């Protein structure tokens, strides 16, 4: 089936004219039509625009002109503003918002010939680890536990993107990661995702959650596919003051480097009480694979890891409370009238924001308020500096770190819903990379006893995604992860 091809295979097939871009796109659109009602991975499908793009791609390919992604059909997380195409951020407040501009990352993908199938569902304003907070309903994971047909979550916040890639209703997807929103759903859905170094991808045109943590990255079926996508998404953008003015390396080539001679660190603080034994076992297995491939395994310490989650849940809501102030019903987006300005704000935001967004806006407002700023926000920033120092110290001795991506496999829809803190614990292994700005990749490494995928995380030095890809690709080769979800195109 065309939808079974990896991105690299599809790219080569298109260039060899084994099949056309319109055939490939139609295969995906057909699969979406069948599976999206079950999965709810897309909130908007842009079939007509996708077919028009595919036809243009075929003209280019026929003329022998091809860019890195010519004819490749992708899902776009609904946090990326797409010109003329509704962009909701998973929120009721933006349910009718049509941006008059294209985000830099999606513009880069279009420049490189990509085809957009539609906009992927997500947790509201990227706040969540389950995709249960979307105003457009939850996304269902294409995976189920063995002998148990309860619907599972795909992870979040990029749950729609991850489910679409895993179920073969997108060849790859854009996603964003503020505290793990690429890596955790990648792990839950048995696919690869990378959060690159903060500053590698432009944030311009991406609806902001927490500006100092948000970073765009790809979700894909293989490490190489993720590398190809990141190569197109990344690059300096003068419209984003925090964008890094650095050349984009050949990430795909880095996947073929191997790990011989690399020093791989194992942070002891990631050995958490109550972590599933099979995750610990998988971790050890992954380290064994790398040792077999010629890497040296080194025990290291990141002493401030234990404060990561607490500080993250101060910094991220603080920035969010300010970033989301613009959704006030005055200029665009949903408005609920009120008798005066204050009532307009209160009604609009009470109607427009879901419970999780309201909770985080309240937390953020609280930690920034007079009398609490020093105790919460300022202290969190100090701890953040210490966390970065932990990584800087460790990366003087090792080339990359390998950890589990999440403390558990995917859970069922409705589980962990009673207590927000339990949900927040999902991010425990992923938030340190956001707090420190370093790159992190999740690669599927095995299945748990119930047949659900588990990922391993590779962390690297700032702007050294190449080593991260090299280690990720080595794990991928050794793991030979071929398991497929029950719900998938042609499945």
């Amino acid at each position, binding site marked *: 089936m065309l939808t079974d091809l990896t991105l690299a295979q599809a790219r080569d097939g298109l260039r060899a004219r084994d099949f056309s871009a319109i055939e490939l796109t139609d295969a995906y659109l057909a699969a979406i039509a069948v599976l999206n009602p079950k999965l709810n991975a897309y909130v908007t499908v842009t079939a007509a625009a996708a077919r028009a793009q595919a036809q243009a791609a075929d003209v280019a390919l026929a003329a022998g002109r091809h860019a890195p992604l010519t004819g490749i059909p992708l899902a776009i997380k609904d946090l*990326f*503003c797409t010109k003329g195409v509704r*962009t909701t*951020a998973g929120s009721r407040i*933006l349910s009718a*918002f049509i*941006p*008059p*501009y294209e*985000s830099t990352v999606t513009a880069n993908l279009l420049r490189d010939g990509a085809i957009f199938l539609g906009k992927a569902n997500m947790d509201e304003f990227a706040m969540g680890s389950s995709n249960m907070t979307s105003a457009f309903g939850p996304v269902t994971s294409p995976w189920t536990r063995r002998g148990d047909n309860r619907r599972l979550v795909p992870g979040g916040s990029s749950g729609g993107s991850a489910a679409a890639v895993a179920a073969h209703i997108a060849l790859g997807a854009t996603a964003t990661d503020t505290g793990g929103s690429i890596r955790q759903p990648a792990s839950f859905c048995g696919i690869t995702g990378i959060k690159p170094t903060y500053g590698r991808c432009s*944030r*311009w*045109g*991406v*609806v*902001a959650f*927490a*500006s*100092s943590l948000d970073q765009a990255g790809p979700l894909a079926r293989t490490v190489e596919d993720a590398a190809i996508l990141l190569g197109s998404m990344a690059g300096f953008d*003068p*419209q*984003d*003051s*925090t964008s890094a003015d650095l050349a984009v390396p050949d990430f795909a080539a880095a996947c073929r480097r191997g790990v011989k001679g690399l020093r791989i660190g194992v942070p002891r603080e990631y050995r958490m009480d109550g972590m599933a034994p099979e995750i610990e076992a998988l971790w050890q297995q992954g380290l064994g694979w790398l040792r077999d491939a010629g890497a040296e395994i080194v025990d290291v310490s990141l002493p401030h890891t234990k404060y990561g989650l607490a500080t993250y849940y101060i910094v991220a809501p*603080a*920035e969010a*409370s*300010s970033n*989301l*102030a*613009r959704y*006030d019903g*005055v*200029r*665009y987006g949903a408005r609920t009238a009120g008798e005066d*300005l204050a009532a307009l*704000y209160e009604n609009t935001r009470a109607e427009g924001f879901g419970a999780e967004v309201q909770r985080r806006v309240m937390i953020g*407002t609280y930690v*920034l*308020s*007079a009398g609490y*700023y020093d105790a919460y*926000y300022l202290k969190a920033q100090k701890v953040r500096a210490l966390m970065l120092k932990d990584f800087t110290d460790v990366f003087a001795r090792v080339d990359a770190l390998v950890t589990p991506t999440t403390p558990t496999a995917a859970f069922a829809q409705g589980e962990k819903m009673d207590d927000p803190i339990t949900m927040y614990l999902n991010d425990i292994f992923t938030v340190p990379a956001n707090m420190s700005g370093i790159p992190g990749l999740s690669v599927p490494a095995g299945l748990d006893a119930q047949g659900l995928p588990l990922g391993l995380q590779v962390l690297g030095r700032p702007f050294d995604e190449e080593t991260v890809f090299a280690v990720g690709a080595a794990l991928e080769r050794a793991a030979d992860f071929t398991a497929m979800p029950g719900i998938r195109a042609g499945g």
Partner: protein
Amino acid sequence: MAYTIEGSTGAWEVVVGLEVHAQVISKSKLFSGAATAFGAPPNSQVSFVDAAFPGMLPVPNREAIAQAVRTGLGLGAQINLVSRFDRKNYFYADLPQGYQISQFEHPIVGTGTVEIALADGSTKQIGITRLHLEQDAGKSLHDQHPSKSFIDLNRSGVALMEIVSEPDIRSPEEAGAYVKKLRSILRYLGTCDGNMEEGSLRADVNVSVRRAGEAYRTRCEVKNVNSVRFVMQAVEAEALRQIGVWESGGTVAQETRLFDPNKGETRPMRSKEDAHDYRYFPDPDLLPVVLEQAWVDELRAALPELPDAKQARFIADYGLSAYDSGVLVAEQATALFFEAVASGRDAKVAANWVTGDFFAAMNRTGRTIENPPVTAIALGRLLDLMADSTINGKIAKEVFEAMVETGRDPGAIIDAKGLRQVTDTGAIDAAVEAVIAANPQKVAEYRSGKDKLFGFFVGNVMKAMAGKGNPGLVNAALKQRLG
């Protein structure tokens, strides 16, 4: 003599500090490429950044930062090579982001000084606490519709400099002189046009009163005062109000007030607008502003001569008085005009003409130094025609008025009107003879010692010559003839 206000219980000292908001002269806004021209149709100069659309990001405007540095240098202030933008969070309909990007903890400019000149001839140093950059908000129009408010976002995101003074000001006069001097420096630097009517310069006036020698008492902030005169009136009105409160046994509460120029009084703003917790925190969309010392030095080297230096030079080089030089340097264009007139001529005469007849003509005709009633070149020619005795001083005033009236060259006016000074000794002698012959009585009195009558003869001779006689030759001829 220090300024005090006499209350019913004794004298009160007034303590004032000013926060001046100065709109930066810059083609585009502080964090977006949108234009900043005044008077454009509503909402015609608004980018997606200014309207806070989703995913839009601020990018600092290098020119606005340069303008702030130039201003800091012009105020003799410390330039902070590392500064930071913070968010000041509050909700209002004309604040699209829901926060204003400002500099709270780490401003771009630190302490400096402004010297003001007072009417009694003394000068005083007013300390500058800081200068920081921030965005302006949009404008809310509440009077266009019975139930709706209209919002104009043209001003949203425009760069402002907030210049904060120390509480060094002690009288309405000093407050006025400070604003005028600050405006003058900003205009010299070309960093703010200082136009208070258009709102490019506005002041928040912090006022408190105290007994001599006391610590500061509670202050009130009078917001958004938009003329020098109103600043002076607001200081006085607010001081009188506070004295009244203290003297009647009350306590002044710290609050934000507005000045009503029609009633000449301040009144409290609604407390709701005063109760914000702004939740300042560093703007995570922006990196710290890091300046290279070499770049600051370049800006410093390119600064124009500022009013204080220019005044010192006018006094030293031209021998002008402190008062005249102060008047001439207040506006850069006036100083330039003066120097154009004075160049190669008697500078004191030039100063007298510029501050005298020329200023009077400018006021009378309602014209400006940029569009003067008489050009500097023409005025210079007039002075030359006096210097070379083509006309005398009295005729020069007549010619000047004709220049204002017609815009013609002084030489042409003199020729057309036949105003050329008479230096023909024959004509002068004839006029002298005629005056002596007509006034035998006065001649006798003069000769018997009444020297004061000499002026009478000069006046009559000049009158007989229609004012055109060369005063030196007339004097000489009279002296000789009267003996």
